[in-house]
């Protein structure tokens, strides 16, 4: 392995340059990653508070403290901010930026200046989306379905332009990562020796590059529809509104895989490092990431089974949607198999990985109800769908993201967090999450429709349980924030390799020096060859 002698002499990337300007015009992928992290966590809190507002309003069937219009605006902004400003950029841009070059043994991403440009494009998009609050807000739902979105009076154009620009930031990040993975790998880092986190981020970057342009054109057509009105989405002018749903979901279903694939990458890292075991079925997991990326482009019609799409198309989409379930099942089963014969250390990241396995499996299995044609007719646009995608998004990506945050916190800041507080936060998040969204499965199968401001009193009992659960979840998430902030301030200095990881990012200083490695490392072994594994026992 590369020698570590004079790593400690050079200052870490955090202190190498001083002053706010050194952060704002940095081209160092680690600093850009941190700036993304701060921005996305901020928007996660904003949209999270909107979610608490929603849940508290739904505590009783009638009107509690906001009018129908305000409620519609709050759930739209909760959806739009969470999707476009938090969950898509969070893992790829925040953690991906920080880890990709380190794990590949490169000094930086392929196009550092483009990396900074995509951060500022993200900031412009964020400002525009938040500005819609002032300009009459947005009440079309994050899906912008026409003809409602092309006729409503709210600030749809400002919001769609904001999302249009956020799409560019996503394309440029994806493009940067694909080129980095292809061209910047250190000597010895072959495709089969890359950590699975890189495979997941590579598959995500491919989807970002190939799917987001369709979102750009869809939103541009919507803006033109409102200003000049071509009419292809407006029935009165000779068009058909179902076409907008085709255009929109052709991007948005691959987008949900942009959201969840990086979470898979993190979990592969967490489980292997903390159970000191080689990953089970490396090739299967790596290829299933790419398989999911490919199939994700073929299944968008399962959002439209009851939307007036032809039945034949529904059958084709339902069949291909079942095909996505297989690689996902392979991943989950391989992770559980990795635990076999391990020496599991229950640190906070490992706790998050363990509750990920529960929440994501529930999310995945409930997907079966929605991809089967006849049950989807009953469950479409009810709280069952709300529960399903929260189990996959919050239960999948966000819990993996929190686990990853705790796992690489020492590497990012050089400090350790309080282990006990981390474990308690994991427990709170687990209980709060399951109470909030577990009850919503039953609400959905009872027929409670989505995006309802006032509901029939039969649903009140379940809604109240769900609202209480959301408060517990909020408490858990705030505890995570305080634990990390406290760790930043009072945490003791982290050792160079607190978890004993063997992938490249653990071979350089903690926190890493400005250009990552003194000498480009030469890699001879895979990312999961831990010292504890006794290879000779496999001989006899």
């Amino acid at each position, binding site marked *: 392995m590369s020698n570590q002698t004079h790593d400690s002499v050079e200052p870490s990337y955090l202190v190498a340059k001083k002053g706010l300007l050194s952060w704002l015009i940095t081209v160092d992928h680690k600093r850009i990653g941190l700036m993304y992290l701060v921005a996305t966590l901020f928007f996660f809190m904003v949209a999270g508070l909107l979610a608490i507002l929603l849940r508290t309003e739904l505590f009783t069937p009638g009107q509690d403290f906001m009018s129908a219009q305000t409620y519609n605006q709050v759930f739209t902004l909760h959806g739009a901010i969470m999707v476009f400003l938090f969950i898509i950029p969070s893992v790829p841009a925040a953690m991906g930026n920080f880890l990709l070059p380190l794990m590949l043994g490169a000094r930086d991403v392929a196009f550092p200046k483009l990396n900074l440009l995509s951060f500022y494009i993200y900031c412009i998009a964020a400002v525009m989306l938040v500005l819609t609050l002032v300009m009459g807000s947005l009440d079309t739902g994050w899906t912008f379905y026409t003809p409602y979105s092309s006729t409503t009076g709210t600030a749809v154009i400002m919001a769609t332009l904001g999302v249009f620009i956020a799409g560019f930031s996503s394309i440029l990040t994806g493009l940067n990562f694909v080129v980095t993975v292809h061209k910047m790998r250190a000597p010895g880092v072959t495709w089969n020796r890359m950590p699975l986190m890189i495979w997941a981020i590579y598959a995500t970057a491919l989807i970002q590059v190939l799917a987001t342009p369709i979102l750009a054109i869809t939103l541009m057509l919507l803006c033109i529809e409102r200003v000049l009105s071509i009419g292809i989405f407006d*029935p009165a002018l*000779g068009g058909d509104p179902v076409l907008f749903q*085709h255009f929109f979901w052709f991007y948005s279903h691959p987008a949900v895989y942009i959201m969840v694939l990086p979470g898979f990458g993190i979990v592969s890292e967490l489980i292997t490092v903390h159970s000191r075991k080689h990953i089970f079925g490396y090739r299967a997991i790596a290829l299933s990431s790419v398989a999911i990326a490919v199939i994700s482009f073929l299944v968008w019609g399962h959002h439209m089974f009851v939307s007036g799409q032809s039945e034949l*198309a529904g059958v084709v989409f339902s069949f291909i949607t079942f095909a996505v379930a297989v690689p996902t099942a392979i991943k989950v089963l391989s992770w559980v198999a990795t635990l076999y014969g391990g020496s599991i250390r229950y640190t906070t990241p490992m706790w998050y990985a363990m509750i990920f396995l529960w929440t994501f499996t529930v999310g995945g299995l409930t997907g079966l109800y929605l991809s089967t044609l006849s049950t989807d007719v009953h469950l479409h646009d009810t709280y069952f769908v709300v529960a399903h995608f929260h189990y996959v998004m919050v239960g999948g990506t966000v819990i993996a993201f929190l686990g990853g945050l705790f796992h690489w916190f020492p590497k990012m800041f050089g400090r350790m967090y309080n282990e006990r507080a981390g474990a308690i936060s994991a427990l709170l998040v687990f209980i709060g999450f399951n109470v909030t969204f577990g009850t919503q499965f039953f609400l959905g199968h009872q027929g409670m429709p989505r995006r309802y401001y006032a509901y029939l009193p039969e649903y009140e009992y379940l809604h109240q349980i769900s609202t209480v659960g959301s408060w517990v979840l909020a408490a858990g998430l705030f505890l995570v924030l305080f634990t990390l902030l406290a760790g930043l301030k009072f945490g003791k200095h982290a050792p160079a390799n607190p978890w004993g990881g063997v992938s490249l990012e653990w071979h350089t200083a903690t926190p890493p020096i400005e250009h990552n490695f003194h000498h480009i490392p030469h890699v001879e072994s895979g990312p999961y060859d831990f010292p504890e594994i006794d290879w000779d026992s496999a001989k006899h």
Partner: protein
Amino acid sequence: MSEYVFLNGKRVENPHESHHHISPVIVYVAVFAALLVLTGLTYAVSFANLGPGSLPVAMLVATMKASLVVAFFMHLAYEDRFYLFMFLTSLVLIALFFGFVLFDVNAAGALNDEQAVGVPRLEEGLKASETAPVAGEVEAPAPDAGH
């Protein structure tokens, strides 16, 4: 620093020497001439009123022109195979997107007729003058004679 430079595990002899493909001028002139001829062909196709067949043929000619430009003007023929792979993947995605959406628009009206539901097709829609079949006296929504 004269230390040897490695790239993806293989030692690189002279790392900063780069080899490019430079095609002779005649290739460009030939491709340019071919493009002009094909543009003329596009004109011919449109005036030869082949009826329904004119769109596929026009698309074929345009694809030939496009592949000429991509292969020779953009040097894709001499480049690393991965660029070609990326470009073809995006074309496959486009074809998929078109295929499913046009199939669905086509099938939407057909299924209604097939079940003899007697539901007016998409074109008539509601904007046309036929009486909305809600409260007033009902007669099958006659195809309006306006068109």
